């Protein structure tokens, strides 16, 4: 395989471009996705290639963006809809949760809703409480939705292609603070199946389970800890629904210790679900210490830079948590 070094953002764009070239039913809609290229420049250049028919600027109307995607999907198209910030999914929630997610089940398995709702999530840009949330736990809770949260260029490209080819509504949460991070990505077509976690670092002393930007912070923490002789295994689930329990359970059986790291508020966060999965599994007997969650504080994201940093886990917080547990 020949590899190219590209950014996360470019990887998202390539996945959309390649799928749109492959399948004429795939199209992109959202606010300012056309000539503006999206708020983060993800779709720059796409309207020039595919035209305004298939790269559609919409008015500022999240409810109808998600709802029209569902309606188009159930009638034979494969829309990729962009919500400019994951925070605004609140406005799209009825279309997504009450309509798209349930159509197939309510109709007795007769409908397919092959849509992807892409959105950047997370804090770290100084955009304050209404532009910085990590709301994935809400979505995980809804039967009928798949929830994807890639952390690297390689993962984001392979998973977005899978999302576009999937026949279900997929919520695709992009990590905005890694949009410009580079990574190796194959030049050939490839997909990454849903429900397969990636062991981002192999280790024997402690399992760190992390999502989104926390994967990168956990890897940094692992390098610091390696110098102290602590060998950390870092697991990135990549998809929250479906969830790869097996990889995690195997790792915990090996290390006997589990730390779960996410940016979202600790209370009601996905970490609680992960901990419960482990407690219910055969890994329970192998745990040498209580499971630890390192997560966002239970407050909205503040504007002031230092405060914002202190609201979500940083590398030091992960390092300290590992030191406490080993």
């Amino acid at each position, binding site marked *: 395989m020949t590899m190219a070094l590209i950014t996360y953002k470019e990887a998202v764009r390539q996945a959309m471009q390649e799928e749109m070239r492959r399948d004429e039913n795939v199209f992109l809609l959202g606010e300012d996705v056309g*000539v*503006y290229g999206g708020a983060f420049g993800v779709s720059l250049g796409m309207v020039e290639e595919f035209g305004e028919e298939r790269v559609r600027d919409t008015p500022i109307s999240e*409810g109808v963006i998600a709802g029209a995607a569902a309606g188009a999907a159930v009638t034979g198209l494969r829309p990729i809809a962009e919500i400019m910030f994951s925070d605004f999914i609140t*406005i799209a929630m009825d279309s997504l949760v009450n309509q798209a997610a349930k159509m197939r089940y309510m109709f007795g398995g007769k409908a397919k809703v092959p849509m992807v709702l892409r959105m950047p999530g997370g804090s770290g840009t100084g955009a304050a409480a209404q*532009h910085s949330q990590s709301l994935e736990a809400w979505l995980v809770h809804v039967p009928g939705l798949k929830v994807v949260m890639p952390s690297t260029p390689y993962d984001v490209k392979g998973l977005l292609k899978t999302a576009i080819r999937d026949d279900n509504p997929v919520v695709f949460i992009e990590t905005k603070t890694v949009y410009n991070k580079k990574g190796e990505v194959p030049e050939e077509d490839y997909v990454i199946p849903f429900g397969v976690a990636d062991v981002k670092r192999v280790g024997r002393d402690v399992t760190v389970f992390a999502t989104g930007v926390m994967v990168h912070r956990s890897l940094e923490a692992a390098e610091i800890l390696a110098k102290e002789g602590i060998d950390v295994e870092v697991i990135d689930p990549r998809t929250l629904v479906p969830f790869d329990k097996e990889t995690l359970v195997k790792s915990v059986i090996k290390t006997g210790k589990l730390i779960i790291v996410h940016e979202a508020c600790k209370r009601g966060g996905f970490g609680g679900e992960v901990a419960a999965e482990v407690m219910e599994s055969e890994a329970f007997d192998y745990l040498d210490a209580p499971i630890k969650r390192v997560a966002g504080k239970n407050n909205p994201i503040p504007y002031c830079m230092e405060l914002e940093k202190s609201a979500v886990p940083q590398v030091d917080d992960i390092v300290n948590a590992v030191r406490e547990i080993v």
Partner: protein
Amino acid sequence: MTLSNETLISWYKKMLHTRFFESQVDAFFAKGMIHGTTHLSIGQEAFAIGSTAALHADDLITSTHRGHGECIGKDADLNRMMAELMGKSNGYCKGKGGSMHIADLEKGNLGANGVVGGGFAIAVGAALTQQMKKTGKVVLCFFGDGASNEGSFHEALNLAAIWKLPVVFMCTNNHYGMSMSVARSTAVANIADRAASYEMPGITVDGNDPIKVYEATLAAVERARSGVGPSIVEGITYRWLGHSKSDANRYRTKEEIEAWKERCPIKAFEKYLIKSNVISQQESDEITAGAKDVIARAVEFAQQGSYPGIETLEEDVYA
């Protein structure tokens, strides 16, 4: 309508404060001295100042992500505004809100908003309070052309209309919602045309003329205050700078931007004030210099402030 010289000069000052405040913020952003994001209203000052001038001191507003002018129109303290943008604890929101969330409840400013269309329903609720408590106060609900395509716009206007609430919906039509022109985003020519669906008056005025804006707003405010019901007042204006911080302006031409800069609301108002013998050129220059001083002092105040301590992180989540 006769407006006293004093009144007109106070508007001129507020327009200058808005312009210089935002120019300073723009410069600080370029230097990395302010982080995050901000949306500047340079070129739109007349609408914010002319409209808020039609309010009583205890009337209310809801504002938007591009709300510095409306804050200033509602007599906000520029020192605390600048401090907030610098993330300082002496800012309006103790450094926790930033540009998109400046609120001044004491002066009736229920806040800027990071969510486009986030203010419609809040304004309607605030107007309901005024009606039920018979306070005689009115709410001005500011929003952009783009925001009127959110569902909440339509829900709020209908509710306000059937309950005859004392609220006026103030559309700052600057021709674009980010890159989307009104012509592309909206089926009607003017946002005010949408008033017809809710059986309320809708008027479109030159948003770069503070006197026209004032007159139209005052009529709508008086109607609301007397219990007849809500209206839309739309001002046509133009955003000179990029959508946030800066942008590549891929969606519009240099010529268009330059043409609107020629129609600078502040320059035009200065010309009017001098021609009408309200002020002389020399007085105008003095007022301008004074306004620059006010902003320089706001910067000093902000720089002297301290950042909020980490211990404040989890404060103020609940009452």
